[in-house]
């Protein structure tokens, strides 16, 4: 039996309504947890005053320089915490299995562990993908981590460091998946753990992995290096499923929802007799007379038609990934998205994964050496120009990197002939 509950008239109002209530959860915890009692007290004060009452500090585990988010209360009276049992309320960021898969046992084990060492409050998951074990005293941080670590789990990222990564469910349950997202994630992250656990980068660096351009982990906008599945050859078709789609949806829907929404007009419906068999064309009969036709050279791999006709259309067989660099949130220059720097690389063989790993390392190294303090990769590229970044990490230019060529003459082009030479050589080779 824990200490007496504080009055929480404002929080109480969050117990009504159909959505699961975190307040109800906290109150359940508070029944035998003093930290939860006082957390509710402080939170109610924040609601009342419209003011956060936490401040940071320095707390960590032996051997690592990051991964714990320290929180000390600022709500004091006569220099003493008003809610002493929640005066320390640190979070451990722990990396989950890629794809966030759990057995019921693992969930229970984690919960038990955290009720022992911490408040019992766990977030599945933080926006970067960490399991956030929230509410721990300074003293308990180390034993809690030790136990998690023994279970096979490791600390995530915080501060100017490599951050915890995310990949979509992908290959585990999605027919759009174009590579093994979990393997790519583990390859890249686990080879660079030093940068995660001993923060020494100019600022944070995030990797994210999406199996296809639907980008279910928001990698373009929310990671410094996004690895997104794609393909080079023709979209695969399945006539049976295409006919099923047509049977239930009809021509109007096919025209409006599929053909009409292709961003590059790469789709058309043709009479089967007139369907083209040319290279680069995918064709699939939707009934006895008509076929849906895809001009693959003009398809930008946006996923829309595959989404609307699942299974009937599938990514090509020659699969791999695109790499985009520089996504981040709003600080300093406004939000930036990742920029396409590698339109396509295979990601199948061991060597392919090793290449991805090397590229990731190159990018981190270039960032580490060239970014200013507290400058994200996207800001750095904005400052130095994409070409200097490409030069630095050894990537050749490609028209897929741009929406359009420059429209101003403000460039010094004395190396034109050399650059043309390079391009011609690459085209020949």
């Amino acid at each position: 039996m824990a200490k007496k509950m504080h009055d929480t008239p404002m929080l109480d109002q969050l117990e009504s309504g159909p959505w699961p209530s975190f307040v109800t959860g906290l109150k359940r915890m508070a029944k035998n947890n003093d930290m939860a009692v006082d957390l509710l007290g402080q939170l109610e004060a924040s609601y009342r005053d419209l003011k956060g009452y936490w401040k940071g500090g320095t707390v960590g585990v032996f051997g690592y320089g990051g991964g714990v988010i320290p929180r000390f209360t600022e709500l004091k009276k006569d220099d003493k915490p008003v809610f002493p049992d929640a005066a320390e309320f640190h979070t451990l960021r722990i990396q989950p299995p890629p794809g966030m898969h759990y057995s019921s046992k693992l969930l229970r084990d984690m919960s038990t562990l955290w009720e022992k060492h911490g408040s019992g409050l766990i977030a599945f998951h933080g926006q970067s993908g960490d399991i956030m074990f929230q509410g721990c005293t300074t003293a308990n941080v180390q034993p809690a981590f030790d136990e998690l670590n023994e279970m096979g789990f490791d600390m995530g990222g915080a501060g100017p460091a490599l951050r915890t990564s995310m990949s979509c469910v992908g290959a585990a349950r999605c027919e759009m998946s174009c590579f093994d997202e979990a393997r790519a994630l583990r390859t890249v992250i686990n080879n660079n753990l030093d940068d995660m656990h001993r923060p020494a980068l100019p600022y944070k660096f995030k990797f994210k992995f999406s199996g296809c351009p639907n980008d279910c982990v928001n990698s373009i906008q929310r990671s410094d290096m996004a690895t997104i599945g794609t393909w080079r050859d023709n979209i695969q078709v399945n006539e049976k499923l295409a006919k099923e789609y047509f049977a239930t949806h009809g021509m109007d829907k096919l025209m409006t929802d599929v053909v009409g929404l292709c961003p590059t007009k790469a789709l058309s419906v043709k009479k089967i007799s007139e369907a083209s068999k040319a290279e680069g064309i995918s064709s699939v009969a939707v009934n006895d007379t008509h076929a849906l036709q895809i001009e693959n050279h003009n398809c930008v791999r946006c996923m829309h038609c595959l989404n609307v006709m699942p299974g009937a259309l599938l990514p090509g067989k020659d699969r791999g990934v695109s790499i985009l660099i520089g996504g981040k949130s709003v600080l300093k220059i406004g939000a930036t998205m990742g920029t396409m720097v590698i339109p396509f690389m295979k990601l199948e063989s061991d060597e392919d994964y090793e290449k991805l790993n090397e590229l990731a390392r190159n990018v981190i190294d270039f960032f580490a050496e060239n970014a200013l303090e507290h400058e994200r990769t996207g800001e750095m590229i904005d400052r130095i120009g994409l070409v200097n970044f490409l030069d630095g990490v050894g990537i050749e230019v490609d028209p897929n990197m741009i929406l359009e060529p420059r429209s101003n003459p403000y460039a010094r082009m004395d190396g034109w002939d050399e650059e043309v030479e390079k391009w011609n050589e690459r085209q020949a080779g």
Partner: protein
Amino acid sequence: MAEMRQPIECGVPDAKPYMHPTMLKNYGKWVYHSHPKPGVLYHRAESGDEIWTVKAGTQRQMDGYTIRKLADIADQYAEGFVRFTTRSNIEYMVTDEKKVEPLIKALFDSGFPVGGTANSVSMISHTQGFLHCDIPGTDASGVVKALMDDLYEEFIKCEMPNRVKLSTSCCEINCGGQADIAIIMQHTKPPKINHDLVANVCERPTVVARCPVAAIRPALVNGKPSLEVDEKKCICCGACYPPCPPMQINDPEHSKIAIWVGGKNSNARSRPTFHKLVASGLPNNAPRWPEVGEVVKKILNVYKADARPWERMTDWIERIGWPRFFEKTGLPFTKYHIDDWKGHRRTLNASAHIRF
């Protein structure tokens, strides 16, 4: 102190031990999916194996009771495995279609709404707020709870033109990300500086460097090194506050809430887009933020009625145009909507294209 334990630097664990066996078996070999009903996904593998996924909402910030309840349901109805989505929804996978309905019932009965798939409004991207962050202007869990109560029906049904992804962020830093509708703290007054503390707590050059408009300069105040803000220049972004807590940006009255729409992360049809400002000046009205809910519902209702199937928020607005968006939602258009940040020229209408 005893000798400290060296960490085992094991990194990201392998997912295999925690993955539903049918997913593991058919890893990379899926060929089809469909949406049998709201909250339920059906996937089929090349091998013919089938899996039904039942998806339910959670509060993300989970107490032990909740976690064990979810685990129990997994054991009882769903073969002992779950996964979480990036939006803190939980997914139960079953290989036997007959288990789907009982599972749904168990979830609803335990207070976990089944939904969030396909063209529903999914769970809101959740951040930390008053519960844990050191710089929040508002809460996160509470805002999310209040809004999801409001949007409950849209979560458990699939009646939107396409998926709807919301985010809330408790400060302008926006950990919640770009979304179809984003609800974000917006400060409207320059930071109030507690000069007594600056010298002790803040590395002044770092703070100066953080300001996007170079409005901060070092100054001596009462003989002590402090900082000074050019209030004419200051855009109240709050970027100086994390490195220098004495630059108090949060204000119970003047920290307002702004609503942004049309962010999109997927590449489907249109390229990814950032969300754009549509409303601001909403009060930080804990514990249920009714004014925010009003505006969000207004926008969602118009979108629901007016957009065509598969149009995300941004696709719809792109088609009808911003003048019509403001007309249909009845939201006022002000000078603040007109960008004046670096590169703003590209947001101006440099054409004779107009709509009446």
